[in-house]
């Protein structure tokens, strides 16, 4: 299985395909970056060069555009609330599923699995009506609650498989040493599970940071960055979109890098 192809021609073809597929992913990202560090005039000019003269005019224009700074701040706040809520709700549920057998366990698992068969952002439509009645309309917490609903099934399934992988005997040993249940969890299980929990926290953050539909439905003045870009689509100049796109992409690059170790063992399995 280690040997690639039968001949050097095959090996060459194989290597070339790998490179082409990498370029297919990276080149569009590079071109967006080129646009973001060009001047607005260069962006509107034609034909365009494939490498930029570095200029921060477009980025500065974006940063100083009315409402952008606030929208970025709102996006971060919403994503942090989503992260906290989905970890605080999801981790105990994942632990409970992994460690106990009890009535209603299957019902809960089916409920969580079912949420994945439905287009969850659509839930923002009825919630928009409810939010108006209870005063949560146009608030970041309202958006974050919907985003938590998007991230929670993954948090539960990921932490569930995470805790399954940590032997129960480790906890029992801690109990014999005189630890209470909570102490055993905090001192023995949590350090082992922490990297995985952090990975699913990152995932929850990215879900919220990237979400467009619900954020755009639920906010009017307190927009997140995605909602801001969507709602000002018609009146904003095109170079504003490119700078906005770059700002949306950069955290995603960092986050995917941070969780790459867990991507396949946790998300890949949990997605099945």
């Amino acid at each position, binding site marked *: *299985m280690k040997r*690639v192809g039968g001949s050097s021609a095959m090996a060459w073809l194989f290597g070339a395909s790998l490179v082409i*597929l990498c370029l297919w*992913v990276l080149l*569009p*990202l590079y*071109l*967006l970056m080129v646009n973001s560090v060009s001047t607005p005039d260069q962006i509107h000019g*034609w*034909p*365009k*060069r494939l490498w930029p003269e570095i200029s921060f005019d477009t980025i500065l224009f974006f940063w100083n555009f009315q409402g952008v700074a606030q929208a970025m701040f709102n996006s971060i706040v919403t994503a942090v609330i989503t992260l906290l809520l989905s970890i*605080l*709700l999801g981790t*105990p*549920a994942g632990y*409970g599923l992994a*460690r*106990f057998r*009890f*009535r209603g366990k299957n019902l*809960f698992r089916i*409920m969580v699995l079912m949420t*994945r*068969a*439905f*287009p969850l*952002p*659509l839930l923002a*439509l*009825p919630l928009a*009506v*409810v939010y108006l009645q209870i005063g949560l309309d146009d608030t970041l917490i309202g958006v974050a*609650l*919907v985003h938590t*609903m998007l991230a*929670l099934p993954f948090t*539960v399934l990921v932490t569930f498989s995470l805790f399954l992988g940590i032997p129960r005997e480790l906890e029992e040993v801690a*109990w*014999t040493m005189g630890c209470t249940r909570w102490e055993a969890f905090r001192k023995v299980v949590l350090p082992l599970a922490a990297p995985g929990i952090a990975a699913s926290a990152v995932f929850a953050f990215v879900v919220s940071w*990237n979400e*467009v*539909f619900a954020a755009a*439905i639920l906010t009017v003045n307190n927009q997140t960055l*995605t909602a801001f870009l969507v709602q000002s*689509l018609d009146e904003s100049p095109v170079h504003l*979109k*490119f700078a906005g*796109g770059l700002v*949306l*992409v950069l955290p*995603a*690059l960092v986050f*995917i890098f941070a969780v*790459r170790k867990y991507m*396949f*063992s946790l998300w*890949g399995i949990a*997605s*099945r």
Partner: protein
Amino acid sequence: MGLFRVQARAFEPTYPLLQGAEIAVGWYRLDGRVAVKPNPWLPYLLLGPAGIFVLVFFVYPFLQVFFLAFQDSAGQWSLENFRVMVDDFNFAPSLINTLMLCFAVVPVQICLALVMAMMISRVDRGRDTLLYIWTIPLGISDLAAGIIWLSILEQSGFFNSLLGYAGLIDQPLNWLNYQNPVALFFAVVVAEIWRATAIVLVILVAGVGLIPKEYNEAAEVFGAGTWRRFFTITLPLLRPSLQSALILRTLLAFEVFAVVLILGGIDLPVLMGESFKWQFEYRDAGVAATYAVVILGISIAFTLLFLWALRVPEEAQG
């Protein structure tokens, strides 16, 4: 240490909710004092908050969508919203476009991801770097993906610039408007393939990792070639992963929204975009919810179809 443990089955009759359930083991010291008490309510305390949250923010709004769609503004049962939706000149095109996009995008993504997963399994050096690069789009929102492809395909974008340098065009062409519906459609298809193949790849690579290496090695010993091994071992064993990837991607394809909005605007109506328009611009939650019911309907129909079509035959189950 002076500890012994007691299986907690004795608790059953006291807690009717837990009858027949096995409770966590309890730990006791020799003098009879409890070290860690088995608490039958603990799992409910752990799962309760998440369960209540799912009830409030999934089950309740899910039911509410149907109330909004099937009731008129006075709260009477009516199909008025459906009549308004179907009579709208954008309804039929948006339904057709959504389905066509799904049919154009999902098969390509499954095949491409399968090829990539097979290639990955033959790479040793640089495997991690390769996987990182190929899964980058996983973290990129549909909005950002739309903007990225806008920078390439817009009138003064990089695609037109390349055509210009190659001497194929004298003036930049506008690919992304109603005069070029085919080009616009394919722009969205390319952007969607670029963005969302990564999630299929992750599921398939994880699935390949679950296939015992011995199967392939044994087949190789018996002289099976690369293609034979792929079709008789890898592909059948990958079926559960393929099934869930197919269902997940199809459902997400019906939710296509921001990519289309950025690249096509009103020139390429899709269901999710119409739903957004009715809610946000026309302020008509009823019709918006009716579109949601349509999206839910086709999502459930296709999930059931795939579950039936790709069911694992009983004789093949272990």
